[in-house]
């Protein structure tokens, strides 16, 4: 099987997963407490107003009709209309998506910058002080809850040390980039960076710890193989041996976890976004659950699901490139 066929197969599997997500989120609405009509009508609205509201929202139709209508709209990339505001759900969700993507990518990049060198050093100096320190750091990172870390960073870094803001997002990455390149004004970028710094650290800490452990164990496994001795025997510098040969072979599991984790970060940034007032889809989801705006809730879950599937397909493609055996298996 060639790479093309492999990717087509993965894409079909992805579509099935997305259909599953759509179906589950659609029917979840009927299993959870909370009537959207109550949330949308005034407190003393009479039965006729409630009935009219339900009719307008299509809630009086049989479930299979509602489901068929929803799938048809989705096929036309229409996520529906917010029950509360009457606005396009697609527009509202897309307005929040860049903030979450920025945060997830920033967290991933910070994690990689810290974790991979740390994992390499830890493996290289096994059972030395630096190895113990890195292992301790990993343990702490994995066991520290996000909400606590976020608040601690706000208090220790933003309040006590300053001048990093305690939360919010003044400009998007896109706006900052435009200012940088078109207006030669780096201040927008600086503003973006100081706002995303603490949320990215908070969101990325668990991932950093995980990646450090993964890199360390992968490196240790590779370091025990004979080709490492051979490269050393050839007289290659140790840095080259570690980073060009050993680390490269360790990358396959790292990239797999990286992809999975990026998907998790997109969907799992809820707490971090809430603590740092970061206007992404995580905090938006919480808000819409409170309003019981099911059109938006479904839309957000579908966007998260699609993001997860797309990232996994990309990871599969990278995996196949790094390890062609998976294509032929």
């Amino acid at each position, binding site marked *: 099987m060639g790479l093309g066929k492999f990717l087509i197969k993965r894409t079909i599997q992805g579509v099935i997963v997305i259909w599953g997500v759509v179906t589950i989120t659609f029917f979840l609405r009927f299993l959870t*407490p*909370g*009537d959207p009509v*109550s*949330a*949308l*009508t*005034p*407190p*003393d*609205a009479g039965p006729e*107003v409630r009935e*009219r*509201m339900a009719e*307008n929202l299509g809630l009086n139709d049989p479930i299979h009709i509602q489901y068929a209508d929803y799938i048809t709209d989705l096929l036309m990339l229409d996520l529906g209309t917010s029950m*509360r*505001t*009457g*606005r*396009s759900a697609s*527009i*509202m969700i897309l*307005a*929040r998506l860049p*903030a979450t993507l920025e945060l997830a990518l920033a967290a991933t990049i910070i994690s990689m910058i810290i974790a991979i060198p740390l994992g390499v050093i830890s493996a290289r100096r096994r059972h030395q002080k630096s190895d113990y320190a890195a292992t301790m750091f990993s343990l702490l990172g994995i066991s520290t809850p996000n*909400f606590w870390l*976020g*608040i601690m960073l*706000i*208090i220790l870094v*933003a*309040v006590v040390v*300053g001048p990093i*803001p*305690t*939360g*919010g*997002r*003044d*400009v998007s990455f896109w706006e900052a980039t435009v200012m940088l390149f078109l207006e030669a*004004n780096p*201040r*927008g970028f600086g*503003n973006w960076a100081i706002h995303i710094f603490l949320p990215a650290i908070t969101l990325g800490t668990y991932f950093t710890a995980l990646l450090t452990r993964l890199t360390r164990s992968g490196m240790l496994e590779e370091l025990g193989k004979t080709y490492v001795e051979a490269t050393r025997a050839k007289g290659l510098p140790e840095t080259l041996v570690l980073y060009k040969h050993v680390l490269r072979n360790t990358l396959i599991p790292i990239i797999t976890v990286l992809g999975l984790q990026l998907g998790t970060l997109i969907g799992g940034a809820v707490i971090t976004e*809430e*603590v*740092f*007032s*970061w*206007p*992404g889809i995580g*905090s*938006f989801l*919480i*808000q819409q659950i*409170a309003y*019981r705006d099911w059109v938006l809730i479904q839309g957000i879950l579908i966007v998260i699901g699609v993001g997860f599937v797309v990232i996994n397909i990309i990871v599969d493609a990278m995996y196949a490139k790094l390890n062609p055996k998976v294509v032929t298996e």
Partner: protein
Amino acid sequence: MVREAGTDETRRSFLKFAGAATATAVVAGCLGEDDDEDDTPATDDDEDGTPAADEDVDIDEVTVTQGSVTDTLDPIDHNDTPTWNILDQAYEPLVYRDRDGELISLVATEFERTDDLVVELELRDDVVFHNGEDMTAEDAAFSINRTNDPDQSQQAGVIGAIDEAEAVDDTTVEITLESAEPAIFRNLSAFGRIQQESWVEERDDDELATEINGTGPYELVDFEEGSHVDYERFDDYWGDEPAVVEARFDGTGDDGARVASLQGGDSDIITDVAVEQISEIQGDDDVRIEGEPSIRCLFLVMPNNDGPFDSHEFRQAMNYAVDVDSIIESLLNGFGEPTSQPTLEGMFGYNPDVDPYPHDPEEAESLVAESGYEDEEITIVTPTGRYLADTDIAAQCASDIDSLDNVSASHDEWETQELFDVTDTGTMEDSPDIFLIGWGNPTFDGAYAMNPWFMEGPFWHFESEEMEDLLTQAADEPDEDAREDLLMQANELAHDEAAWVFLNQQYSIYGASEDIAWEARNDEDILLKEIFAAE
């Protein structure tokens, strides 16, 4: 965060150019009276620690951090306090309330009832929208009708029994009512923000939710959904020029993050300070606590459709059993007032002759025995995190009742919406036997406190012919004095019948920077025009 205008570059000034406002305008008065004394903080440090105001100094920038940031700027798409606080800087109602809850003029200079079912409002002739066009009576009538349309407004119904509003001439609006609706002007002080008819009709829902064109003292500069709403002073505002030049409303749902943003200097005012964080703010010299009795009271609802709460004696026993003073001292850090009736002190229809039930466990045990419902087991259901210390208060109530020899009690925490869903069906059988809830009264009228709970409707939980008769009479009584007397009688009856277990009046607890002179209002509104630089 507070700087004199023009002395320094603000955090956002490199991103957005702000125009300094130089508007001069007429004082907003109460039917011609200057009400500045009501809305301006004291000129010397007052008793509760609010710094004295220096009204001659502009404040470059103020940030208000609430629990959330709205995702819609359309004034009829919501009915929640954080969103009102954001929109009220730009959209104005026809009339308003001073800090004592008394009606004052705003966009309308005069308002009167011209017939049993007709009220008339005379509007200012110098009001302009942020797009520079004049406001007309047609715009005001359109806005009232839009707010009253149940198909598009979440405030329809609560604005009152309005049939239709129409413009009589350029500055006069006539509102025809479906019933006497004695509280119509109070309702109009809480609902019905003025929008420009042509501007609204030219826009789709998406544009209405992301743009603002009001008549208020601040115009929109930037709105990033879920992140912030930025304002700057509106040069052509009809009223006094406010001291704050630029303002930002942002939000975080995390209590600790809000406190940190205040202490870190990112916010000047934060809302909803948790009780356990009060001491942290009080221990910081740069910030202070602003606490004010709010328009919300907490109570335990006891649907009287079934035993044991169909017994008058048993309901009274619950009131005697709960130690409200102790709850206020130990759980609320003193930030609360005991209540004796549905209507809060200072509101229309409050009965000053009715005192709170004292804590008297022996009397409670005796009444339980008298009721014939001894050895009952009751479970108090409470929402979680909806009101200040709600679960702790419910637990303490259960503990107080459980300490009686002849009743057992416990509490159960429900997800807030789950509780709301079974308590607004209009059928008492759907509700838990006893549950905690809070009720805000933005109209300052006793009818709003009692009608929903004591008359047939979604929140009906207490059946009493005498009560229904009093409230029906009040609803049809156009004479203010006679109506007030009827509401006072209804409040006394609610107390004597022990319709609820009367708990505490909730406080609104804010954190504020010592750089600003601002006093919290009891209606929970935050108005930028009431913020001044501290001396």
